[in-house]
């Protein structure tokens, strides 16, 4: 029994970290209606950033986030300006291939700069928290807290602030929003850069938990896609729910069945969701129809 509780709890915690990594993707998809295939490489770059801060200045990644998050915001803005914005008015496929090429580019640039070695940072907390028979990693608990704070904060931002209203208006009808005087291209820029900044935050949470290497993004981006689709593309609380589902499934199947098959399970889950509930668990009605006109 305690094994099961342990597995479910660590599943929830790791799932929330996955969710944090997916929020940026779902935000960008919801507003710009594009899939950023380079999302995993954004994560990889930010994770290298966290590793560098720890390695060079001895700062722990939670402090380094103060520098990494704004840096990733800027990086996202530059990428938007150079690659995404010129591709937006072209056929859908152009964005797909452009972001994919960007992903190959960043991955190999990282390979050249950093070699294929696995990089780790020294452990930050020496011991886990124990509650009865259950052990919980402090890093995971912190990640969980940061994810919850982020989700609540984003929800508040989107529901209450002027920027949030402008974003929602853009999502509902870009042309009408333009006519109402909302600078839609700037909303796109802010969303894309904001999504990248969120990946930066996720990277800071993940650096203490996972090693960094140039193709680390590929492992995580597939998980992020599964989460985003499971929760409903464009839904932030959906990403949280999807992340926790994936985390629990991974942790349970990794223990009771072989870990490799655990990975297969969530792709099968993904396909099942696509067949039976293409709008996701919490997605708006018709979410799957976004991008119909490819």
């Amino acid at each position: 029994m305690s094994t099961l509780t342990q597995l479910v709890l660590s599943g929830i915690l790791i799932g929330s970290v996955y969710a944090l990594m997916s929020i940026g993707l779902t935000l960008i998809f919801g507003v710009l209606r594009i899939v950023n295939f380079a999302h995993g490489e954004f994560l990889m770059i930010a994770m290298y950033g966290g590793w560098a801060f720890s390695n060079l200045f001895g700062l722990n990644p939670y402090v380094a986030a103060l520098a990494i998050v704004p840096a990733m915001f800027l990086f996202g803005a530059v990428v938007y300006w150079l690659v995404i914005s010129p591709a937006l008015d072209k056929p859908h496929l152009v964005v797909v291939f452009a972001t994919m090429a960007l992903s190959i580019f960043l991955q190999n640039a990282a390979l050249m700069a950093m070699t294929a070695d696995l990089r780790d940072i020294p452990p930050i907390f020496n011991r886990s928290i124990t509650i009865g028979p259950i052990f919980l990693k402090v890093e995971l608990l912190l990640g969980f807290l940061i994810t919850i704070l982020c989700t609540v904060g984003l929800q508040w931002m989107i529901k209450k602030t002027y920027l949030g209203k402008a974003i929602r208006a853009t999502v509902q009808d870009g042309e009408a929003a333009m006519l109402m005087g909302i600078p839609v291209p700037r909303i796109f820029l802010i969303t894309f850069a904001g999504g990248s900044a969120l990946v930066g935050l996720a990277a800071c949470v993940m650096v203490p938990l996972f090693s960094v290497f140039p193709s680390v993004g590929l492992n995580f981006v597939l998980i992020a896609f599964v989460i985003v689709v499971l929760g409903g593309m464009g839904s932030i609380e959906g990403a949280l729910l999807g992340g926790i589902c994936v985390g629990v499934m991974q942790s349970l199947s990794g223990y009771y069945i072989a870990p490799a098959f655990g990975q297969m399970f969530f792709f099968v889950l993904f396909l099942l969701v696509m067949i039976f509930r293409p709008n996701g668990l919490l997605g708006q009605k018709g979410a799957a129809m976004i991008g119909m006109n490819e």
Partner: protein
Amino acid sequence: MSIAIPASISSRRIPVLPKRGQISWFEIVLLVISLGLVVSGIAPSLQDVILLSFLFAGLGLAWNIAGGYAGLISFGHSAFFGVGAYTSTILLLRYDISPWIGIWVGALIAAVFGSILALICARLRGPFFILSTLAFAEVVRIGALNWSSLTGGPEGLSIPPMASLAGMVFASKATYAALMLGYLVFVYGITKGLEASRFGYYLFAIRDNDDAASAAGVNPLLGRTAAMALSAALTGVGGSLFAQYFLYLDPTYVISPELSFQFALLPAVGGLGTAIGPVLGSFLITPLSELLRSHLGNAAAGLHLVIYSFGLIVVMLYFPAGLAGALNKLTRWKPFS
């Protein structure tokens, strides 16, 4: 500034170089040059590059049937490639069945996989379709990795390198080049036939407007499934040929997202939904990436892919209609009028 107003589909369509069902002088010249390269056997060091260009041109064409003609942008085609490669190899190693037969069995099984994927994704469009194909290929890859008794698992399978005609293993690379060119011409012929056929017109109709097509009496699900099955079968044939050339298979290369991307990139660069596009794409990109790899590969790991992907971003952003589209504009350009 750009706004996400979806580009209309008609603006995406590229005027095909020759009229449908006809063959242009350009295609004939390209074929003669290719034949010349194979027969003359010049530059043995380039033979690898040449035959890979043929193989990938055929694979790009096979992808194009689904992606370009039927509008089914798939990033899961390496699953069909792998299924084809594994089927013919397993039949050869276990049951001693010649690859000349095994290839067609592989194509058939790949077609079944293609139909399954098309049915899974029947209701999905755009990014959802793309992500589902990616997930499908991952399921197949992880399955192949773990079903060791059949596929050899992560160690892969090796075909004994004994040259024989029945075993489709040859000593000279020129023979392989001829084989790959044969594959390319075969897929090209099917594509050209498709372009002029009734079925081809059904696919264009389904791609351009689903509802209008079904109102006009075309069954979109049937059309999509058939297109995916045909595309998968031809990709499977390419997979078997690949296995016969490299004589080694492992799931992490044969069924990888990278390979799927490559199949899709060649038509995208060359010109989507045209017969000549994937060929042009492959003749440009495959030698480029192979040469960059062999010249820069040792000096700096990853540099060739950095250059390659950078070029790709530029091509995608500035020539979204691909090389065929750019060439077509060039031939229409009248300097003195």
